[in-house]
């Protein structure tokens, strides 16, 4: 990391730079026995110039006595009439749907808190070459990540470690890091092409060869202790996204096909590789007053099972000065008992200050580890309230 900073440092000395800051605090408290699960003050700084961007976030979590300096972006950018290029640490977003971002594959995620779904926090920046070409309604994008990163996953003492509850006393390890000296051999790469038709239908198709993004574990004996170790396999994904605006309604959809994705198919950590098809189709309506109402239908399918779910989103600004923002997100499995309700209230109480309160109400059941048991069931005791204070300066 220091080497990368040194490479970029000379460029920092030239050009006109714009700097912005954000500071804040995130506090989360479980409804039941979990107590305080997050108490995280942070400072974020971002500086941009014509050809460079650098941003980092420094945070300290009192609940785990853990601190981190995250590089959120550090890249060189150049654009011309019909192309743009970005090289360095960056986030790349794919997909059209909300809530669960199934097509957003390029960056790994921080799943240490699996119900904190703010992409600006959970997407982990990777050192990537990102080249884009534009020609009228056509666009193409090539992404190459020579040294990938892995997801951050809950470990033994994490409040969201549910594996140790499944197998009593088992420890949970985090994923290993990709090594710099293997540069190129662990490469992730992909291509995305898109076209905006005259009818307004916008379609993109993509291919990405990457390490599995879903958390999968294998249970092993390690020095007479039972240990869950994350499983990493290189897989291929093809997918497509579409959107179409029709007056006040926007139709959108994402579909991905993960080939030979590793899955934990039993609570004792038996791994199976299977093709998994995931799709989300939905629409949202925005009224003249600015209220947005969205509905989505989710399908996850593989050879043994098809799981369906629905999700719903409502967004409204209110108050005399429109300084309050209400949001409600709900996800419910139709074949299983998965339930996730997320009411949220935001308040812009000054020009640069914002306070938001949200709840994550989780429901589901624990069965025999079958797909029909759902994914949220193990977390059903983790419902919590989440407060976030932000100041931009």
């Amino acid at each position, binding site marked *: 990391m220091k080497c990368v900073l040194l490479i970029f440092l000379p460029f920092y000395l030239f050009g006109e730079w714009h700097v912005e800051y954000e500071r804040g605090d995130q506090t989360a408290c479980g409804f039941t026995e979990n107590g305080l699960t997050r108490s995280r003050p942070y400072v974020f700084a971002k500086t941009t110039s014509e050809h460079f961007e650098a941003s980092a976030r420094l945070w300290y979590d009192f609940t785990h006595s853990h601190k981190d300096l995250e590089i959120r972006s550090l890249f060189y950018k150049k654009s*011309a009439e019909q192309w743009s290029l970005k090289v360095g640490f960056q986030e790349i977003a794919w997909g*059209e749907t909300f809530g669960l971002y199934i097509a957003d594959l390029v960056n790994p995620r921080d799943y240490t808190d699996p119900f904190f779904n703010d992409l600006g926090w959970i997407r982990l920046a990777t050192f990537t070459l990102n080249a884009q070409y534009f020609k009228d309604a056509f666009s193409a994008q090539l992404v190459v990540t020579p040294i990938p990163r892995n997801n951050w996953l809950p470990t033994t003492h994490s409040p969201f470690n549910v594996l140790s509850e499944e197998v009593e006393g088992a420890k949970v390890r985090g994923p290993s890091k990709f090594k710099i000296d293997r540069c190129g051999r662990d490469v992730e790469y992909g291509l995305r092409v898109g076209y905006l038709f005259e009818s*307004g239908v916008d379609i993109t198709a993509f291919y990405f060869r990457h390490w599995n993004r879903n958390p999968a574990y294998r249970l092993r004996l390690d020095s007479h202790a039972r240990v869950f170790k994350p499983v990493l396999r290189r897989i291929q994904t093809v997918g497509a996204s579409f959107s179409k605006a029709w007056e006040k309604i926007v139709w959108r959809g994402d579909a991905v096909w993960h080939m030979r994705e590793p899955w934990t198919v039993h609570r004792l950590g038996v791994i199976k590789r299977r093709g998994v098809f995931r799709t989300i189709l939905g629409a949202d309506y925005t009224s003249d007053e600015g209220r947005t109402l969205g509905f989505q239908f989710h399908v996850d399918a593989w050879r043994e099972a098809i799981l369906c779910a629905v999700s719903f989103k409502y967004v409204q600004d209110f108050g005399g000065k429109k300084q309050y923002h209400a949001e409600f997100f709900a996800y419910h499995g139709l074949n299983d008992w998965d339930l996730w309700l997320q009411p949220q209230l935001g308040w812009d109480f000054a020009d640069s200050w914002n306070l938001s309160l949200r709840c994550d109400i989780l429901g589901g059941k624990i069965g025999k580890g079958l797909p029909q048991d759902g994914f949220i069931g193990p977390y059903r005791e983790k419902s919590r309230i989440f407060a976030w204070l932000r100041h931009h300066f």
Partner: protein
Amino acid sequence: MKFISLLFIAIGCFVQVLFASDPISVMDILKNADAIRNPGESYFLDVEVRNSETSEVSAFHVAIQGNDKTRIETLLPKRDRGRTMLMLGENMWLFIPNLKREVRVSLNQKLTGQAANGDISRMRWTGDYLPTLESQTPTEWQLLLTATKKGLTYDKVRVWIEKATFRPLRAEYLTAAGKVLKLATYQGYGSMAGAERPLEIVIQDAVKPSDRSVIHIKNMQVKTFPASIFNKSSLGSTEL
């Protein structure tokens, strides 16, 4: 004597007919009024919007190319910095910096306060609206503009244009049924981009006049933009 009287009457009628019929077409009036507000086919705007209700100041950088390509980057308020709207014809995307992703949105997405996207992004009436002359006074034309395409912010616009200068003076923004939604006043004429232009547009709610936004044009430059600026995939990687 009788002959001379008839001759004067005939000349009088001729002069009256000659000056009563306007030599300029309604479309030309609209084009001239557009030329007052738009310095060229492709240009850059530095805009500040003040809302009476929130007393909040918003600032935007705007790139406009023709009638169907606009990009609006938010500078203020600070919490919204980096939010970028891209309008390509009837299609619109919103780039949200926190998500690092462009989200397809419907055209009625509001910019800030009483100012709709269309108030900044579609400064040219010609091409979007068909004008008819409703009435006129010795100093002003009153035109009714009817939308010729779907997805415009307003279905109809009634606009008053000064005859001597082609300056738009004020306007009413109407629904298709003719109900007045908002009132606009074009004021603060000053020199910018080589001509006298309205540097302030006051937009107020027709029902609640105290609810108003003032669009202040701080800078205007004729400028050509690379095609990549107007591609939704480039919203996170290019800047104005």
